[in-house]
């Protein structure tokens, strides 16, 4: 069967100015934050792997906008945006990327392992597919305690061929766990295109296999994401059933900073063509045209975000390295 992707283009966009400002601000925050992180990486202030989600900002911004504060989110190693928009302090996120003591994990996690318990952000997980069963477990615990929260589990198209994707979707469907499976399909698992990895490239259809509501979503349209995730969250909260959303997006940068061009496995023409659907530009222009946002709103958002990110970088830069004693703390939790 064919499904049309969710589109949302009501006159006036069907949203108020506060929400429009928030959505634009959240997307711009992810973009600027990651642009600054890339600069810091080039300067050697950030090491290891750094995976940017530039181009994919509408997913985190749209999805998180329909979550309650006590809902959970869990993600991959490309999780700066999910973590920031869930509520984490950009200064502490940047400090974590810098490997400093004021980072969310006191510098012991790094870019790929952001955790923020205060905001129910359950981590950046860097083994592809491994956090899907963990997300099911959080859903299990919500149900066990009779809560009405949901967990949004972000993962890439690269996780779909993994066994754990199927184990987790099966268990969550079998046990009716409140998990929103949110696949950020950016078409490439590192350098392997969807077509080279999956016999079924319409990822949302795996939801039908497991008997759960599922649909493809235009991931470059923040309102489409918001609408689809909003419906899924409402249904999941009410019916305690999981849902699968295949959010079609595109990363403008390479897989990581070590793959900056990302041009070996895809053409420059393709990347340029996709950039014409930049989620920030698309939404900004629509909001301006609809009169929901003014030029002044946009300028103010740009300035506020730039200030915030500059402050985050300064904060991270000033934060000390973790003391040597941190090597041996947190290996085990000491029982009370």
């Amino acid at each position: 069967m064919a499904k049309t992707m969710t589109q949302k283009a009501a006159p006036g966009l069907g949203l108020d100015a506060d929400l429009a400002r928030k959505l634009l601000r959240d997307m711009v925050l992810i973009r600027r934050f990651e642009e600054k992180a890339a600069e810091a990486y080039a300067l050697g202030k950030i090491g290891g792997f750094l995976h940017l989600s530039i181009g994919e900002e509408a997913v985190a911004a749209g999805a998180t906008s329909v979550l309650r504060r006590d809902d959970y989110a869990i993600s991959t190693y490309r999780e700066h945006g999910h973590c920031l928009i869930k509520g984490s302090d950009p200064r502490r996120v940047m400090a974590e990327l810098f490997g400093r003591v004021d980072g969310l994990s006191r510098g012991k996690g790094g870019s790929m392992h952001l955790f923020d318990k205060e905001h129910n952000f359950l981590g950046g997980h860097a083994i592809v597919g491994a956090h899907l069963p963990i997300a099911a477990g959080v859903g299990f615990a919500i149900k066990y305690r009779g809560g009405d929260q949901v967990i949004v589990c972000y993962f890439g198209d690269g996780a779909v061929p993994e066994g754990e994707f199927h184990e987790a979707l099966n268990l969550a469907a079998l046990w009716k766990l409140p998990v929103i499976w949110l696949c950020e399909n950016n078409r490439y698992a590192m350098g392997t295109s969807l077509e080279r990895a999956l016999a079924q490239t319409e990822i949302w259809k795996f939801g039908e296999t497991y008997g759960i509501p599922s649909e493809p979503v235009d991931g470059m349209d923040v309102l489409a994401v918001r609408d689809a995730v909003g419906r899924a969250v409402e249904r999941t909260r009410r019916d305690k059933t999981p849902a699968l959303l295949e959010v079609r997006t595109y990363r403008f940068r390479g897989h990581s900073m070590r793959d900056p061009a990302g041009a070996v496995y895809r053409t420059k023409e393709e990347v340029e063509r996709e950039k014409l659907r930049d989620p920030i530009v698309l939404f900004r222009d629509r909001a301006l045209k609809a009169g929901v946002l003014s030029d002044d709103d946009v300028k103010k958002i740009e300035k506020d975000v730039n200030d915030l990110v500059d402050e985050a970088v300064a904060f991270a830069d000033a934060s000390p390295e973790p003391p040597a004693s941190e090597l041996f703390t947190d290996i085990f939790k000491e029982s009370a």
Partner: protein
Amino acid sequence: MAVMTYREALNLALREELKRDPDVFVIGEEVGLYEGAYKVTQGLLKEFGPKRIVDTPIAESGFTGVGIGAAMVGLRPVVEMMTFNFALLALDQIVNSAAKLNYMSGGQYNVPIVIRGPGGPAHQLAAQHSQSMEVYFYHVPGLKVVRPSTPMDAKGLLKSAIRDDNPVIFIESETLYNVKGEVPDDPDFTIPLGQAIVRREGTDVTVIAYMGMMYRAMEAAEELAKDGISVEIVDPRTLQPLDTQTIIESVRKTHRAVVVEAGAGFAGMGSEIATEITEEAFDDLDAPVLRVTGAQAPMPYARNLERLKTPTKEKIADAIRKVCYANGSR
């Protein structure tokens, strides 16, 4: 003290902890309706219901991950591996997630999970069902590893494992489930993780052994007593953290040591303990530390080959005589 089997002691520990803490639940293959492949969870479904005794499909990585996720947000899962060999399918969950989440999150998300089930050689179970699985886990910072040899230890250590705020790998044995022993009745009786026990006092040689190997070492000790060799047997009980102090104190007394393990010897528990003894008590030693280990081969099915693969009472006795220079070899 009641006398009960190792299996019953585990069952009692689970029942007591399920009663004590509503956040404790049991999850795994055949733990509910079937009452456990080895009947360790017998009666639990009837007593506690399907919410807390959760049958899973065959999906080790999946249900172990479910346990880890539930533990991250405060539940206390006891995950049963039908046999620990199957934990290899969940090795990534255990090693990369359970063991590391507290550390990677800077102490924000600890994982109070117990992963339990039988491991080690049994009776003609062949290569895929006979492995001494502890080696895969005690190397990993962030995991505690328990191997309980007696019914009392099974109960006291399982209760401590469930109450621990960290991931605990708890490996039982098919060959011990029917072993009987005394078990304290007190529901608050626990044995702290990380404490070895001297099973038999002796003066001539220290044998470090656990699980089935401990029982074989005891038999060897009885036999050697007739020859005037006094064997002390130390059972580590917990392999991570390892109670090296009790081991070293014993070696300082006897000046000789033999380490026994069922698994293949290369880079095994025996290597570690022998190294610890050498580093800590070299000057106290009157002979090199010897290891008696499983052969460096997969477990064969044929009964005679299985016997060759596994340390026997005779092999243990030979090693003891050798460190005591009592077999004419020196």
